Each structure stands twice: as structure tokens, then as C-alpha cells.
């Protein structure tokens, strides 16, 4: 009995380990491939000699990028967007979550407000009416079009609201006795004890702003104002279209497209790099966030 079980296990264990190794490679190798293409010479790339190790190692593509204004410009737009957008998001989420975390006995209008916000999680006007609204407000081509529509993330608000509810009432009451106002209580009592939840929301918000690209395509007309991800998306979409052209047209054209392949890939890699650098924190707080989110008040 015992023997048979260990035999089955002896076969299963290595197979399982190898299978999981393959899945792991499937998730990591694309990025290695990206890096190795971006560090290879154009000729090596266009003749298809590059696999997972750079061929004719060169920083050519990155040097080219450094001299190309578009990439750096979009990078700066993204930085502005992340800083400005995240500050506004955080301020709004904190300010709305605090009153809504009060029991209805203390704040009677609470339920009305909560419903007012939660409804927007499920109902929306959709892409075209939102686009027309942004246009009518004169926000097209402005960075505010990327920040204001999502300035209040209701999901994060609910998350923080649930967290605030667990703050002991005694803390608030003693502060009130000392004559503190609600803003002071929020910033001096609630926020310091809610740091794990705030850190999670902060990271989500930063990543959300950094990764957003479609709103840039929709609302920004001048490429000089594109955030980085939008700029990358346009490059990739161009490549997608040229992919199509390859089917019908001559090899020459194909080679012309291929020549800037390593530059394109270098840009994609650099666009992914900031996320990969903060990834260890992301993973840690994300798993914490799952726990925070699952605690229901």
C-alpha cells in the first residue's frame, strides 16, 4: 500500500516540477527574448538569428532612442500623469471613504451617497457619450482628460471604506474630546493606522495610470502629448498593420519594416521596465490587498 503510493508520487513529482517549469518559462522567456532582440544588431535581427541571447551585442537601439525625442517626451508625460493623477485619486478616495465609513446612525445621508457612487460601478454611458462629453468640455488634447474622468475610483473607495470601518471608534472619540476636527482625525488618526490599505491602493493607482493607453488614443490628438503607453500602442499598431502588408508585398518592404524592429522592441522593453522594477512590491501588496478586499465590514 505504502509502496504503491510512493511509486505514483515518484513519477508525479518530477513531471509536475517540469511542467511548472515550462509554465514559468512561458511567462518569463518573452521578456528575455525582448531584451535580447533589443541588444542585438539590426542585421542579426533581420536575418532571424536572435533567440534568447543577444547576437552581435550592441546598445545601438538604446542609443538611437536616447537621441529620439518622442520616447523621452512621452515618458515625461507619463510621469506627470502618474504624479498628478495619483495625487488627485488618493485625495478623493480618502476624502470620500471617511464619511462613508461612518455608521448610518451618525451620518444619515450615508446610504444615499454610497448608492450614488456604487451605481457608477455598474452603469456607464459608454465610450461614445463619454467622448462627446470630454469634447464638449474642451478637455480634448489635455492631460486632464486622462485624469479627471477616473479621478474617483469607486472600487478603491469601497476597499478603503471597509478598512476605515475597522478603526476603533474610541480613537476617534478621544480625538473629538481633545477638540480635533474631522479633517485632523482623518489625517492624523485614520490614515496612519490604514497604511497597508493605502499602500495597496496607491500602488494600484500608480500602475493603473502608468498602464493606461486607450484613453490617450481617444482623447489626445497631438502625439507630443501622448503618455508613454499610448505612444507604444501606436508603434505596435503600426507594426501590426505592416504585418498585414508583409503578406502581399515584396520582401524589400519587409526589410524596411524589420530594420527598426530592434528599436521598437527596445522601446517596449523600456516601457515594461518600471513595472518590472517595482514588481516585488506590487506582488507583496497585491496579495495583501486581496486579503484587505475580502474582509467585509
Amino acid at each position, binding site marked *: 500500500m505504502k509502496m504503491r503510493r510512493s511509486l505514483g508520487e515518484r513519477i508525479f513529482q518530477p513531471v509536475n516540477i517540469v511542467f511548472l517549469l515550462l509554465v514559468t518559462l512561458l*511567462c518569463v522567456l518573452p521578456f528575455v527574448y525582448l531584451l535580447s532582440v533589443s541588444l542585438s544588431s539590426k542585421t542579426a535581427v533581420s536575418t532571424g538569428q536572435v533567440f534568447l541571447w543577444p547576437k552581435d551585442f550592441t546598445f545601438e537601439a538604446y542609443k538611437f532612442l536616447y537621441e529620439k525625442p518622442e520616447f523621452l517626451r512621452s515618458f515625461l508625460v507619463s510621469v506627470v500623469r502618474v504624479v498628478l493623477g495619483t495625487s488627485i485619486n488618493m485625495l478623493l478616495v480618502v476624502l470620500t471613504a471617511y464619511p462613508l465609513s461612518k455608521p448610518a446612525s451618525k451620518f444619515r445621508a450615508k446610504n444615499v451617497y454610497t448608492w450614488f457612487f456604487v451605481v457608477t460601478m455598474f452603469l456607464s454611458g459608454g465610450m*461614445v457619450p463619454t467622448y462627446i462629453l470630454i469634447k464638449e468640455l474642451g478637455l480634448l488634447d489635455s492631460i486632464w482628460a486622462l485624469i479627471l474622468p477616473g479621478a474617483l475610483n469607486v472600487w478603491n*473607495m469601497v476597499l478603503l471604506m471597509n478598512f476605515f470601518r475597522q478603526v476603533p471608534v474610541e480613537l476617534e472619540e478621544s480625538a473629538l474630546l481633545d477638540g480635533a476636527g474631522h479633517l485632523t482625525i482623518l489625517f492624523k488618526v485614520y490614515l496612519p493606522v490604514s497604511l497597508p490599505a493605502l499602500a495597496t491602493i496607491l500602488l494600484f493607482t500608480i500602475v493603473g495610470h502608468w498602464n493606461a*493607453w486607450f484613453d490617450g488614443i481617444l482623447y489626445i490628438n497631438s502625439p507630443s502629448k501622448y503618455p508613454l503607453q499610448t505612444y507604444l500602442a501606436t508603434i505596435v499598431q503600426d507594426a*501590426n498593420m505592416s504585418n498585414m502588408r508583409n503578406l502581399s508585398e515584396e520582401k524589400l518592404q519587409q526589410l524596411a519594416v524589420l530594420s527598426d524592429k530592434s528599436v521598437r522592441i527596445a522601446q*517596449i522593453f523600456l516601457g515594461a521596465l518600471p513595472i518590472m522594477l517595482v514588481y516585488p512590491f506590487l506582488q507583496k501588496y497585491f496579495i495583501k490587498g486581496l486579503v484587505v478586499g475580502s474582509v467585509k465590514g
Partner: protein
Amino acid sequence: MKRFQIKKDNTIYHLMLLPGVIICLIFAYGPMCGLIMAFQEYNPFKGFFGSRFVGLDNFRYLFHMPDFGTAFFNTLYIAAAKAVLFLAVPLLLALLINEVRSKRYVKTVQTSIFLPYFLSWAILGGIILEIFSLDGIVNQILGFFGQDAVSFLGSNKYARHIIIWTDVWKSMGYNMIVFLAAITNIDPSLYEAASIDGAGRLKQAIHITIPAMAPMIFLLTVLSLGNLLNAGFDQILMLYNPLTYETTDVLDTLVYRIGIYNQQYGIATAMGLFKSVISVTLVAVSNWIAYKFTDYRIF
């Protein structure tokens, strides 16, 4: 007496909520009013009030459009396939990872699988196009075995499957972590008792782990119903092209092309509204089922 007054004065609460209310009113409720365009022959110069009302004409036009039927079918196909795989693949991975004894190996695998989740489709789309391009690594490998290069994303035979599986690839880490957390919460004494009774690891997985996770799997299945019309807009926008519209065009991408590209605002809004009505109904039904059968609440 004075303290009593401070406590009952809620002005500060209303003031704190004001900025959020204004943002929501403008950017969430504003566009909802714009849905009136679905019943208009909307003219940007005349606005909502000046444009002519056409009743259900936009919807009638829509339902006779061949592209609409194609997009509707593709949406259901892609969304349903993703919904099933988003549960099945992570569940399988979680069960397999749970059998690995080395903690370090588990952590490495987990960290790698979760990475693509945090990258945008602008980046991942770029990577996938590169990998599946005519001179990409997949075709290089095929070439090594003497096969002709295939334009994977330009072919109706492959594009849809690539869209489904690459999204599974991007997202599987999320549900996998959720499932792993659920597995760790299972009472270890159940396993001890089972192994004393002579149950092997496989039997333990079938008779303890999976039943213990059944409520969660049920809940996630029910909730995924609400996404049946969301096939993954930003992914498809990156990966599809006119050659594969037949198999990859979905409602959202069609709305985008008609509404923003061709500026047929009324028709695109009608299509968006059609989609929203079905989606909201599905979300309501799924949340109701979830509420009824489990203790799930949104807040």
C-alpha cells in the same frame, strides 16, 4: 452640550464628499444622459437638444448590419472561452503548485506567472505581435522543422485562439493566487485524517481540496457571467487587424470604429446601450444568484 452639537453637525461630511460627487456627476452620470443619442440622428453642431429624434431607427439599422452579428457572435465566443479558461487554468496550476514541496520553487513559479498581469496590453500586445510575426520566434522554430512561415495574427484560423490564450496567459496569475490562498485556508487536520485512512495525494486533492474550494469556484463562475459581453477590448484592439475582423471583431471594437472613426455617434451609442443593457442584466442576475446561494455582497 457643545460636544453633542459637534457630533450631529454633518456639514463637514458633506463637504468632504463634494469633490467626489462632482466628479461622479460629470464624468459618470453625464455620459449616461448622453445615451439619449442612441435615439437621435446626433449632429455634433446641433447638440442633444437640437438633434432629430429617430426613435428606434438606430437599433433597426444596427440589427441589419452584418458586422454587428459577427461581432456579437465573436464577443460571446471569446468571452465564454476566456471565462471558462480563466477558472480552469488557474485552478489546475494552483492544485499543481500545492503539490510542490520546495517553498522556494513555489515562490519562483508564483512570481513568474503573476508578472504579465501587471503589464499593459500596449506592452504585451507588442510582445505577442513580435513573437507571432512572420520573422518572430514561433516562425523561426517552425522554420527549423522545415515548416513555412505562418502569419498567425493575419489568419482567421489562429488569431482568435491567440487572443483567447494570450489573455489566459496574462491573467492566470490573479486567480491562481486567489485559489492558492483558499487552499492554504483548508483545515490541515482534514489531510492528516485522510492520510491516516490511506488516501494518497490525488485522492486528497479530489476529496478534500476541490470540495473545500467548490463554493469559491461557484461564486467566481457566477460572477464571471456578468462579463459575458466583455471580451477584452484593449487586448483585441492591439492584436486584431482588418484581415481578421471576421473572427476577432467584438462589440466594443465595432463601437470604437463606428463611433470614433466613422463618427456615426447615434449608431455607436445605440450599440453601446444594447451591450450595457444586456451586461447590467447579467451582472444583476449573477450578483443576485451569488447573494442567494453564498454570503457574497459587494460591500
